[in-house]
């Protein structure tokens, strides 16, 4: 092993932390809350370790100087990159809220012991995928996220739907990783190497077939239509905190790993952009149209998430197809704000379920009377997702428009038209969902009051919800620092 230990530190903290927390909780029979706190500490450590990589990445003249691993055939190598650090940082940051929230949310689940280590391993897998310098290592980490993801989705294994959802994810996601495996075979056959930097210099037809396999694999994991069938079931039946993590960051970040790999395998940026823009339209349309008929909050959010994946694909597609760094920056911005808004939406929807035992919006009419803060936070998340001005989503919408109009040709404009149509259809879905919480229904209110599973919410749920709400509002009103940050990230990407 050689190189800079700081490179491996975030992954080591996450993996080591997962193991340590598991052992400690099992040995000392720690409570859910204590375990949640330990997970928060680990995530904070990983976040700090990721931030520690920023300066070396800025100072670096040769990207190959910063690595960790074994520089020999068959050895595992980690090369950090700024996009990975950024998205990994967002993932860790989001998980801080998810773990804090789960400190209360999982209080009725006896299997909480496994939850936090699985979350940490999922994030470790995600960061490793970004840092992976060889495709086999990438495959292993993709498998890690598949397995930990499946376990998290089927966390409430006494519920049949949860097990089915977990199984569905396992099958679909494994299909994705198996396709990647097939891709690895072709690439290795064509080049005799597994290292991305080496492969990039000797691309051929085999590597291009491999690229196509990776494209399919990542598309399944990202929930690209028509490979999205796992999304509604998973986000609906997994614990809400897990849905927040998957919908917010894990699945969408696949769209950023995808180009990092595929563009080195011989696929051109135009081809990738074309693929993303065409399939983005399907995602947008399927997402918003299916969203309209949903009454279950989390199923509604699942379809909305499919649409948001489409928005993100469209923006990135423009970036690659037209070689527009501003569109790529818009994509990064969109990813960040979707992460916050989606996580907030799932956490608040989960809070409704935790409190009233239902996620059906018709049964939650008037719920604002009993949980005004939750209703406000959920409304903020939905309003943000629908792109209402002064919330984070609006700046994202503006940037998507700007990217498409900057590109300016008929193809981009056609995509923009689809986006516009979907925005309008989307608001038909968002508005009633948002308003119904405030609609008075005495019968409903009485039933909600009577069936409350818990009467008070603790700070464990309150603090993450309030902080995320503030982030969604503040990012909407003052997006400048965030945009500055992303511009710096994109500048560094361009420099490399």
């Amino acid at each position: 092993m050689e190189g800079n230990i700081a490179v491996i530190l975030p992954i080591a903290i996450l993996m080591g932390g997962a193991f340590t927390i598991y052992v400690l909780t099992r040995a000392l029979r720690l409570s859910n809350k204590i375990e949640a706190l330990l997970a928060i500490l680990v995530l904070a450590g990983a976040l700090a370790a990721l931030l520690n990589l920023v300066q070396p990445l800025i100072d670096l003249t040769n990207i190959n100087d910063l690595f960790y691993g074994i520089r020999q055939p068959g050895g595992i190598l980690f090369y950090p990159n700024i996009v990975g650090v950024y998205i990994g940082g967002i993932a860790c940051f989001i998980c801080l809220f998810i773990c804090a929230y789960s400190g209360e949310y999982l209080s009725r689940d006896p299997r909480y012991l496994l939850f936090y280590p699985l979350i940490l391993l999922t994030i470790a897998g995600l960061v490793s995928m970004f840092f992976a310098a060889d495709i086999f290592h990438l495959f292993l980490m993709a498998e890690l996220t598949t397995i930990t993801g499946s376990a998290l989705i089927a966390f409430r294994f006494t519920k049949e739907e949860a097990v089915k959802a977990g199984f569905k994810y396992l099958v679909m996601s494994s299909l994705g990783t198996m396709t990647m495996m097939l891709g690895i075979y072709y690439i290795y056959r064509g080049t005799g190497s597994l290292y991305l930097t080496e492969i990039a210099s000797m691309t051929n037809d085999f590597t291009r077939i491999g690229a196509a396999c990776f494209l399919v694999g990542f598309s399944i994991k990202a929930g690209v239509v028509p490979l999205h069938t796992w999304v509604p079931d998973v986000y609906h039946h997994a614990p809400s905190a897990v849905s927040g993590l998957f919908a917010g960051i894990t699945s969408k970040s696949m769209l950023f790993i995808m180009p990092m790999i595929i563009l080195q395998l011989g696929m051109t940026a135009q081809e990738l952009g074309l693929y993303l823009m065409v399939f983005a339209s399907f995602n947008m349309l399927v997402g918003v149209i299916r969203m309209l008929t949903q009454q279950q909050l989390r199923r509604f959010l699942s379809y909305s998430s499919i649409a948001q994946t489409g928005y993100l694909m469209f923006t990135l597609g423009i970036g690659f197809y037209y070689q527009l760094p501003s569109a790529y920056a818009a994509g990064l911005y969109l990813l960040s704000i979707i992460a916050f808004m989606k996580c907030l939406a799932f956490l608040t929807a989960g809070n409704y379920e935790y409190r009233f035992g239902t996620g059906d919006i018709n049964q939650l009419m008037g719920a604002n009377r009993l949980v005004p803060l939750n209703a406000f936070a959920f409304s903020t998340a939905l309003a943000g997702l629908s792109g209402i001005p002064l919330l984070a989503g609006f700046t994202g919408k503006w940037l998507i428009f700007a990217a498409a109009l900057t590109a300016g040709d008929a193809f981009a404009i056609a995509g923009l038209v689809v986006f516009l149509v979907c925005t309008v259809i989307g608001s038909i879905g968002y508005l009633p969902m948002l308003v119904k919480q405030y609609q008075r229904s005495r019968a409903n209110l009485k039933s909600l009051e009577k069936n409350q599973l818990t009467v008070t919410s603790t700070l464990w749920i309150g603090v993450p919800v309030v902080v995320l709400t503030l982030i969604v509002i503040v990012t909407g009103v003052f997006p400048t620092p965030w945009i500055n940050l992303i511009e710096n990230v994109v500048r560094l990407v361009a420099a490399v």
Partner: protein
Amino acid sequence: MNTYAYLLSGITLLPVLGVIILILWKKATKTQAAILGIISESCALIIPIILLSELRAGRSVVFSLPWIPNMGISFSLELNWLSLIFLITEVLVTLAAMIYSLGDKDGEKRSHYYYALLLLFSLGMSGTTLADDVFLFYIFWELMLIASCLLIISWGHGENRLRVALKYFIITHIGSLMVLVCLILLYVNFGTASLSALTVQAASLPAQTQVFMIIFFLIGFCIKMAIFPVHLWLPDAHTVAPMPVTIILAAAMLSMGTYGVLRFPVALFSLEAMQPFALWMMIAGLISEVYGALMALAEKDIKRIIAYSSVSQMGYILFGLGSLTHDGMVGSIMHVIYHAIVKALLFMVVGILLAAAHERNIDKIGGLAKKMPVITVCAAIGVLGISGMPPLGIFNSEWMIFAGGFDSGFPIVLTVITLLGSILTVIYSLRFFGKIFFGDTKPEKVDTNISKALLISTVAVTVFLIIEGLTPGPLLTWSELGLVSILGGLP
């Protein structure tokens, strides 16, 4: 920035302060909340009056703070003659509606939220007229929609209010998105969101882009103006909304569409660029005028009659704008103001009738003249006003619009039909007035005990309408100056 600039920011900041206080003041009674709302709104009226001296000296007042510097977006407000006219109209209408609301039964529950939303609704309109940054313009533009939509959902009448609000939201949102596309296109082309800067540069865009943008701007703003056939949101929204909201929607918010047409396609591009669309605007205006009037004639619901009359009146305005002549455009600006006053008055009368007779069907109300003499006089002045009878204001504006039509160079038959179409306005107005106040069918029970707030506000608006009609000079001057401020000279 000088003191005047900081004062200008008060037009948007003081209502925000009022909103914050109202949201926090949960125990406020309706009267307390209304008074706070009225005070906040009064500030928004007093400030532009103070700033009038600056405008008279030939200087526009500008307030600007950097907001998102790396995107070239700033919190910029500009008060010029055009924005002044629309701002004062909107603020006066909101004030009248707020005073009226004191005697109205709507908004008695959760009053603090009700008045906070009314203030936000008004703030959206004030901000729209003052914004000198396209990003900011759109934020205020959407704020106006969101606040009014929430008011309809929360305090609207009838079980279908959510459906109506959704329809209103979706249709107007489509218009907003069309406007947004154009705003971002401007931003992308010139790298700035400053409206002042864009006004100077926009004419340099390729002709094809200009055509595209003019079409999108016109459709987007015509949706807000409720021009036929994109008027579908208006009748239901006006009918379901609580009366003070209906007043603001009809008398003030519709005029924002007119402001949009003037501030964007007309001000950004040359009149030559607008010329190919002039005839279509006039035809659309004519159809809207006739269609609205016919629908008002066919309607039995008294609130919907007045609602459809808005579709008709907006038709006159678009016709005048489409003429692209001095008289037509100045007439349209004047018509916005006169229409705001008349429409506020007529909806106030309708509100009082609904409260008194508990009946909306015009066939079931009649003979109220003897029981409600003051309201009868107010209604008479209102219907004479909207019919364009001299010396009431709309006569002046219609005169100018028709003059503009004849002067436009397009076949005079268009203007003749529009002129003749105004007879329909007279017919539906007189039907409305005659049936309700002198008809034979008498409602079972009439509650003539009208609240003072309703009465005072209605009478005040009536008096204001008469004064405005008798002294059109200042308004004409302001309207001309408004046009000069965007065109740089009279067409």
